[in-house]
């Protein structure tokens, strides 16, 4: 119970920081001073204080969507081992439920974009679903690869397996699955080269377009939910593939060391994201499926290689 509360707090508290760190890193690499690290917290506080303007054409779905997006992201986060190898929650087969929860959140996100019948929201929803149609299977395959090796889809079990010394970092299955999941991470979190989180051009938006009609508390939940989802996916990536340093027992020292290791790994992954975002232009929308197909093919190869190089 305490673990549940602590991990919830960690998800809520840390996710805006990661968003802020990536933004700041990008700004620095672009020779800009950039917003302060804690800007996302200030934004959330501001949105939570503000009034909401809801389109008169919107139905109840529009108002419900932010809560579902937020809660599904949070629930998914509770199933991922963060600081400790034991995740506080394990429902319906772990990884499967995680992917399913994220899909549910996305479904309502897209509905929320469609509901007020604004042109941009519809475009955003349609693009999001196009991308999700390939990104989701790629993510499933990549997770299955490691699940096969661990013999379980439970994420705690998976991390425990990868912690074993017999588990080689450089085996092909491992590398391929990581590559696939990294591309999926870029797509799922709306990063360049798939989407541009910093643009003001509605016509080019994917994720942001679905949020255009949201304001106030609902916008805060949407933004926060997106940050949490990003943290969940990043955690998945660092802890499955590089579990080193994760706390295996529940003692204050182990947890403290685990937290430090976790933060360091997140920082490294954030840096990788920043580098990709700074050195790339956005792909043409119709080339995005190509990139995601690559992720899918790579994940498939990873799956095969578990049988080829057992």
């Amino acid at each position: 119970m305490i673990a549940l509360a602590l991990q919830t707090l960690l998800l809520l508290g840390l996710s805006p920081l990661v968003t802020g760190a990536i933004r700041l890193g990008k700004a620095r690499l672009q020779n800009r001073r950039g917003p302060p690290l804690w800007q996302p917290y200030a934004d959330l506080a501001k949105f939570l204080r503000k009034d909401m303007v809801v389109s008169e054409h919107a139905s109840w779905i529009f108002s419900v969507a932010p809560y579902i997006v937020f809660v599904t992201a949070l629930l998914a986060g509770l199933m991922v081992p963060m600081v400790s190898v034991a995740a506080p929650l394990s429902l319906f087969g772990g990884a499967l439920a995680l992917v399913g929860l994220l899909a549910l959140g996305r479904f309502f996100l897209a509905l929320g974009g469609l509901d007020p019948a604004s042109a941009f929201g519809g475009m955003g929803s349609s693009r999001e679903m196009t991308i999700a149609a390939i990104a989701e299977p790629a993510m499933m395959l990549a997770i299955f690869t490691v699940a096969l090796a661990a013999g379980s889809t439970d994420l705690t079990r998976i991390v425990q397996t990868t912690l074993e010394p017999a588990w080689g970092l450089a085996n092909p299955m491992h590398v391929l699955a990581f590559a696939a999941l990294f591309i999926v991470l870029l797509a799922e979190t709306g990063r360049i080269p798939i989407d541009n989180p910093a643009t003001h051009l509605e016509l080019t938006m994917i994720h942001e377009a679905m949020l255009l009609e949201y304001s106030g508390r609902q916008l805060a939940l949407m933004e926060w939910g997106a940050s949490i989802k990003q943290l969940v996916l990043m955690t998945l990536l660092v802890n499955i593939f590089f579990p080193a340093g994760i706390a295996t027992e529940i003692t204050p020292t182990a947890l403290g060391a685990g937290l430090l290791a976790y933060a360091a790994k997140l920082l490294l992954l954030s840096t990788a994201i920043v580098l990709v975002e700074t050195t790339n232009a956005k792909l043409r929308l119709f080339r995005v499926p190509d990139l995601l197909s690559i992720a899918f093919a790579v994940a498939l190869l990873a799956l095969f290689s578990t049988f080829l190089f057992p």
Partner: protein
Amino acid sequence: MTTEFNIVAGLQRPLAEVRKMFRDRIGTVHAPRPNELYVDIPLDLAAGFCAHLHRKWSARLVSVFADDVRDAMNTAFPFPGVDGLASFPPGGSGAPAVPPNGGTTERTGDDAKPRGVAAGVPHRGVFHLYYVYALDQRHGFIIARAAVPADKPEFPSLTDAVHGVNWQEREIQDLFGLKLLGHPNPRRCALHDDWPEVFPLRKDFDLRTKLPPFQGPRHKFREVEGEGVFQVPVGPVHAGIIEPGHFLFSVAGEPVLYLQLRMFYVHKGTEKLFESLPVAHGVRLAESISGDSSFAHATAFCHAVERAAEIEPPPRARALRTLCLELERIYNHLGDIGAICTDVAFVTAHMHALRLKERVMRLNEHLTGNRLLRGMACLGGVRFDFDESQLEQLAQLVATLQPEFAALVELIRDSSGTRDRLETTGVLTPDVARDLGIVGLAGRASGVDRDLRRDFPHAFYEQLRFDIPVLTAGDVQSRLALRREEIFQSFAIINQVAAGMPDGPIRTAVGDIPPDRTALGYVEGWRGEIFHWVRTAPGNRLARCKVKDPSLQNWPALTEAILGNIVPDFPVVNKSFNLSYSGTDR
């Protein structure tokens, strides 16, 4: 018939030909300046005259506008018996020096029997239509003037033949109340559908008129119908700090089937405003026509007034103008190159471009006191001189900017993702560009080899050596590459001017400007050719100032370039043209 007109050599043959061809149908011919030839034609000859000039002399119809002279005491053209012409010094700054000779007006055909409206009937109770033709290879303008009787306010449309005058003709219809005949789409344009029936550019419309709240019908966009076709309205209020314009996309999925533009949301009545100001104040107004072309517009205005006043700015002033025009070109091109990159999310290049642009703008402020070069232009020259240290700083900036810009070019070139986004995106084919009369850099990126700096050298350009880069692919990448090449040319131009800076005064006194003179001023701004045409009024005022910004000509190119592209590519296509809303709406 031999002619003793004081006109540039290039115009001699077209004039002789026109006279032979139309004989007594054309009225007075008048050349107030060597490269500016006025021909009076009857209204029904407008189309034929246009066809002849276009086919025979590849003339471009660069501007069509009207003038209300119903109450004018006399008009810009002297008529038989009216002794209105003094001798002219060599015309505008750009014209080759031809010794001035005496009266340059002459009746054509048999003098005795005037035919038609144009032929010598005093222009009382008429509107005038002006058709400005540029004969680029012949370095001269032929301006046809036709009278529209006030009791029959109609004029034939040329849009079916010259697509580029579509908006300009409709603007005349809206602002002067002259009905268009035979226009394929004669709906409201400059004044929106909900305007009351007023004609603001008529002289009897008072500038201070307060209109009642608009209650007319809203504009009906044409809808594309079909299964799965949606209309995506964008604007008129946009994200980002830009001006209003409405884009209605008809899309089937992501590909764009049709794009409708709606401009003129911020029609400010600038041309009317010019009529209320003393000429000297007009310079400041001209600066505000389009903020990113402040200096080019102000200079075009000054050029027009100087030509009307028959003065020429001293060489140093012209050199300084050239420097400022090129600085304006550089800072705008730099900004656009960055903005194109940011629209494909290659923000790193944008930040570097902004850094370079900022340095140019700071130098602008250092040289002229204003980052946008405002306040620099004035009638008869420029307001501020650059001293030795300032010129040295300018040379230094170019010297340091050149390698840094080259590095930025490399950075963009190395980004294959950026190239992939820009190449084959937003293609404006040369044929379409020529049909629409696309000017300036957008035209030159689509194979339209036109540049006033070379064809009608104004300011100091006749004494400089520079290339006019022309590309033919017409995609976003071409427009980016053209800007890149022009920046390098601008560096070279600045170096040349700074190296051979003439001494002397920076201003010539303009003095009193005689009334009822007409003059065309022109400048190749960074976006394209800018024309200001003035008719002077007594008391150093203007009876009419027509402003032609290149954006007005180029906006329709966007609807063509976007066809077949996908919606998320629109922002970068739009940015590659980077047209001015304010310059279009005025």
